[in-house]
């Protein structure tokens, strides 16, 4: 097991923060942390307060719960209405609001919704409940997709007829292209460590080639993030954008090829709707036809209306880093972690939830 203490050392953090301030020399810069876990770590450790004021961190679309569209939730809720179906899901999907409510509220009204920590747990449930239909909500990026792929393989091997996946999987590099094409003025990306462990650091090279923007694949400890920021500032100052890998203890440039093979075997790229960002071609994963028997969207004939954002909700702009959470008229009232309206407030990794939890009141 890794000892994280050295990666949280106050003295080293100060040294890094000082070095960042020293080389940034007052030049304004905007960096985006793509991943929700980075958003959380930055807020939890108060890293913004260590940085010089000219360096601004904006949060990106890397919280899988946050970018899952209403229509997907509505689809899951419609499935949950059927008495033969057991919905299985990771915990933080429970409170995400669709237009028809949330899985948590559906459960309180009698739907059979169960929290699991792995796809294999959902498979086991299907085996022990042969008279029921177990539907797993496949949400997340390349980090979780291989585990769903493994479950599909296992379901086929065991010839299970009562297990299926409702997929809303998304893949990472594409939204960074959309964000780069937008006029967001991002000077560099803190790239997601978990996703990169699967896909490697190579798929980000278009950022440099086409947009002249660099990125650093970063770990999640405070010193990881500060070191990544130091590298980004150095790239900007030297005008030498590059894709660097700070998280070498986990990420290889080619990624995890076995996990990639699993994904390619069971999924094909598909257009996907991102909450807040809209439709992004080729940024989602659909189950290949060989495994259609395990695709809940095919197996159950359910139609749901297209996604519509709640009135007044500005999650989209928050996800793009255009506005800070308090600029949304719903932030704090009525949208709170207790009663989330927009997706960014739901997951503990959501930008608004992190902001509300760690920064909502002025620190003195």
């Amino acid at each position: 097991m890794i000892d994280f203490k050295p990666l949280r050392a106050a003295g080293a953090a100060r040294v890094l923060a000082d070095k960042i301030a020293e080389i940034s020399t007052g030049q304004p810069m905007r960096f985006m942390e793509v991943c929700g876990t980075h958003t959380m770590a930055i807020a939890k450790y108060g890293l913004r307060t260590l940085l010089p004021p000219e360096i601004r961190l904006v949060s990106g679309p890397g919280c899988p719960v946050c970018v899952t569209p209403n229509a997907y939730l509505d689809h899951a809720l419609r499935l949950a209405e059927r008495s033969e179906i057991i919905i299985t899901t990771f915990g933080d999907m429970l409170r995400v609001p669709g237009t028809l409510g949330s899985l948590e509220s559906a459960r309180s009204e009698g739907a059979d919704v169960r929290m699991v920590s792995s796809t294999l747990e959902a498979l086991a449930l299907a085996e022990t409940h042969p008279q029921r239909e177990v539907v797993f909500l496949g949400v997340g990026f390349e980090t979780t997709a291989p585990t769903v792929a493994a479950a599909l393989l296992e379901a086929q091997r065991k010839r299970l007829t009562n297990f299926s996946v409702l997929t809303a999987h998304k893949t990472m590099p594409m939204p960074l292209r959309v964000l780069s094409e937008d006029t967001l003025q991002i000077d560099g990306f803190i790239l997601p460590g978990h996703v990169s462990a699967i896909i490697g650091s190579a798929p980000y090279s278009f950022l440099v080639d086409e947009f002249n923007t660099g990125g650093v694949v970063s770990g999640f400890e405070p010193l990881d993030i500060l070191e990544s920021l130091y590298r980004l500032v150095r790239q900007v100052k030297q005008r030498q954008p590059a894709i660097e890998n700070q998280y070498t203890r986990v990420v290889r440039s080619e990624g995890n090829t076995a996990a990639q093979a699993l994904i390619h075997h069971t999924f094909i790229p598909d257009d996907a709707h991102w909450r807040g960002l809209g439709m992004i071609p080729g940024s989602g994963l659909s189950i290949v036809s060989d495994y259609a028997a395990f695709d809940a969207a095919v197996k159950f004939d359910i139609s749901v209306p297209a996604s519509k954002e709640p009135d007044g909700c500005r999650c989209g702009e928050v996800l793009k880093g255009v506005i800070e959470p308090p600029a949304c008229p719903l932030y704090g009232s009525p949208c709170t972690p207790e009663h989330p309206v927009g997706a960014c407030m739901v997951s503990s990794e959501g930008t608004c939830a992190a902001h509300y939890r760690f920064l909502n009141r002025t620190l003195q």
Partner: protein
Amino acid sequence: MSHTPEKKVRLAHGGGGRLSRQLLDDVFLPVFGNTDLNRLNDSAILHAGPGQLAFTTDSYVVDPLFFPGGNIGSLAVCGTVNDLAVMGAEPRYLSAGFILEEGLPIDTLQAVVHTMGETAKAAGVSIVTGDTKVVARGQADGIFINTAGIGYIDHRSRVSESRLCEGDVILVSGPLGCHGMAVISARKALGIESEIQSDVAPLNGLVKAMMNASPNIHAMRDATRGGLASVLNEMADQAGLHIEIKEAKLPIRDEVNTACELLGFDPVYVANEGVLVASVAQEDAEAVLHAMQGVTVGAEARIIGRVCQGTGSRVTMETTLGTHRIVDMLSGEQLPRIC
């Protein structure tokens, strides 16, 4: 090897008839028996203390019923004893109401009752009245327990949140998050297996030692659901004051930290069942800390923060990096995150 079928709780055990009496005679009285309870009257007649009475109630449900370090029985006794103790009361009497699910093995009930008896003995309280109901299979989850408790308050030793004062020192009696993470690992469902033991324990002995050490304990709370963060927020809100704690001072075991990181939990929000938080006048803080460390459940007690100058109730934390952040109330339960 015995081939007798396992004895189970039947609906008739709650019917008030012969089987009910048998359950009482076989399971409850041998463990809980005392002169007040053994009379089996409709209510217990108790001696009132000279001062005020503290009175509290709580219901206990936990999945699974047994977890490393305790079971629902130890929770049901400790939870109510601790609610009395942190108000400065000396816990004396408990009631115990059981809702049992049809089909529950009698052995399971016996094990829980046995633990309750042992825990009550350790805490110096008597279970003086009780009740049992049985509901059909599926209408409860094994065992639900309600306990109510009465404690005596010496008029010199009142504790109340509103007495939290600027300059007070905040102490915590032991390592945080052990109970919550022990229960979660006992569920095994989350793929976390660990050696974490619940901290469930009666705290009245600890409170007594603290109060003997200082008359200036201004507030005390047991940090159960919602953990340390929720209790500190409640204390700050009630007094309208700002509490600042230091992350580096928080007693958190490595295995609890690791399990929390895997699930995306923050240990300051994880439940404890044998940990209290106290706000003590600065001049007495060291004496109280010393007294706490002299009691087994307080051996790892620490000073973790202070009540600051300035208006506005809030809780902040100085992180290990020396930065500051808000420690807010928890909204709902912590949910394991996706990645």
